[in-house]
């Protein structure tokens, strides 16, 4: 198992290089001059413009720019934005915020999604089952930003239950954006859990569990749920990537100073080093969680073994 994990992590290195180069190339290909845009309406003096272009290696060809970026990385230097702020500082400030937001969202998904899915699955065709079906369909069909603004308006502004925006108030500021961020995936988790449970309840070993005299609680909670979790765990792992990119919209709506907002601003300003730094981090997290999912498989299903 340890060898398997080590091999997967080694494989991540070329993937990270490839991903960072692609992102770098895409920012390079963006039309417009970032330095000129920086100055706004008035044109910069030619000398300043030339100096800034030099400083940020903007005159070099793509490969040379990327080479210099990687050379900086090797020395632990992630580069800086056009205001001279190191990317490492930006990450330091934004990562904890987005991690908190994603964890709140993941918790919503896992807890409420699983509960709704299990209850719907054991009471097939009941009122609750139909309710879950209708609600999840509704949530899946509403765009995230609509849900975000409605939640912000009703729960934040009108009812005043949650802070309207920002995270200055601490943890409570994460609840509403976390829920909005989770909503779509929560619906998927509920549906996946329900389907997997219904399917597994038809298995012969469930009949065996009943024949042992186990209570309905053990039959479902112990003998059926664990097998049903495999597709759900796969989804949750892969979904973390979606949560990070979904954070771009959600953090925008709720004005949360996280990675999503930072990467959005950086794209607008064509700050290649910042975009590459953050998106490569996304890629790394994605790889890491996929690995974690594979390791969890083996824990959930003993028939799966890695060499």
């Amino acid at each position, binding site marked *: 198992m340890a060898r398997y994990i080590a091999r997967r992590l080694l494989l991540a290195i070329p993937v990270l290089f490839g991903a960072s180069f692609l992102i770098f190339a895409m920012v390079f290909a963006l039309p417009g001059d970032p330095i000129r845009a920086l100055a706004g309406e008035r044109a910069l003096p030619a000398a300043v413009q030339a100096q800034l272009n030099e400083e940020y290696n903007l005159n070099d060809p793509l490969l040379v720019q990327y080479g210099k970026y990687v050379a900086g990385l090797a020395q632990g230097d992630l580069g800086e934005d056009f205001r001279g702020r190191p990317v490492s500082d930006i990450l330091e400030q934004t990562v904890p915020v987005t991690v908190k937001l994603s964890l709140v969202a993941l918790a919503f998904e896992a807890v409420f999604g699983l509960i709704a899915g299990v209850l719907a699955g054991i009471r097939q065709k009941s009122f609750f089952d139909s309710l879950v079906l209708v609600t999840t369909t509704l949530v899946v069909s509403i765009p995230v930003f609509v849900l975000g603004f409605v939640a912000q308006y009703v729960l934040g502004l009108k009812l005043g239950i949650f802070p309207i925006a920002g995270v200055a108030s601490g943890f409570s500021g994460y609840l509403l954006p976390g829920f909005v961020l989770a909503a779509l995936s929560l619906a998927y988790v509920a549906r996946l859990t329900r389907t997997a449970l219904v399917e597994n309840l038809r298995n012969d*070993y469930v009949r*065996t*569990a*009943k024949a*042992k005299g186990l209570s309905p609680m053990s039959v479902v909670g112990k003998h059926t749920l*664990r097998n049903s979790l495999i597709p759900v765990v796969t989804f949750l792992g892969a979904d973390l990537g979606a949560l990070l990119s979904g954070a771009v919209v959600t953090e925008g709506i709720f004005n949360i100073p996280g990675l999503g907002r930072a990467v959005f601003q950086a794209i607008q300003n064509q700050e290649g080093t910042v975009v590459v730094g953050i998106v490569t981090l996304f890629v790394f997290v994605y790889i890491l969680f996929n690995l974690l999912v594979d390791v969890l498989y083996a824990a959930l299903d003993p028939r799966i073994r890695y060499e």
Partner: protein
Amino acid sequence: MTSSLTHPQVSGGPTGSALLEVDDLHVEFRTDYGVVNAVNGISYTLSAGETLAILGESGCGKSVSAQTIMGILDSPPGFVTGGEIRYQGRDLLQMSAKEQRDIRGEEISIVFQDALSSLNPVFTVGMQIGEMFRRHRGYSRGDAKKAAVELMDRVRIPSAKERVGDYPHQFSGGMRQRVMIAMAIALDPAILIADEPTTALDVTVQAQIMDLLGELQRDTGMGLILITHDLAVVGEIADRIAVMYAGRIVETGATDAVFGAPAMPYTQGLMASIARVDQKGQRLNPIVGAPPNLAALPTGCPFHPRCPRATPRCPTELPLLREVVPGRRAACHYAEEVLGV
């Protein structure tokens, strides 16, 4: 319905001593395509230490009746629409869900056909055997594991101590069925139902499993209900047999007597259809036609469309299970002629 008249008991001894009495049991499946009459009024009794074989083709209702006794019939679609199942005089069907669960595994237990799919793939065999003790006896995890090792020894799984932590997929088919048996006999049940316990196994392994079941029964004195379509297995270990057709018992009696001279054309057909070594090279004698559709049973005797002896009486009048000679019952208008008495 006066069940005692229309459905006489299939009994090996006086009713009072019976451990299990199934009385005029009716089970139906309500499906989208209509109602399937899976069990249509079967009655039998089982005494301690006795082996009753329930014999019949696939889909004749033998497994459904077993699942109904265990109380593990999937409902919906399955519904018990009549009859009683008395265990030590008490009707299981009238008990609360909790009372039924306490009996399941503790007093009556079951071994299924396919051990691979009947064991949970994500738990160790030790945990699955030990779970019986945890659920019914309140054992600790450690004690349950020790008890599981002892049971694995008892059903002769080699190096039980090392293998108690293995998962079902790490065992061979025969060993897996031994695990199932260990689980079923864990709490010394009074009744063991073996539902086609050897069908999924190699012939040599089949014999080992049947020997094991027979031995365990002799040791514990439990009543054994053996559900099978394998006549060879029946002949070896059953005291009595009940032949089922289309959800009914159509013939019953001591195994030797029924094997020696069937009293019902369907049983005759079954006996004639087995391949025999001493008739090598001859054609097999299958029963012509297919088992009836349980959603649309033929009128009269359900076997009449396939019966070589059918007369105009057969499609119009349902033959009841009746005593033909002492200890022998058959559901055929012409049982005496078939039997030759």
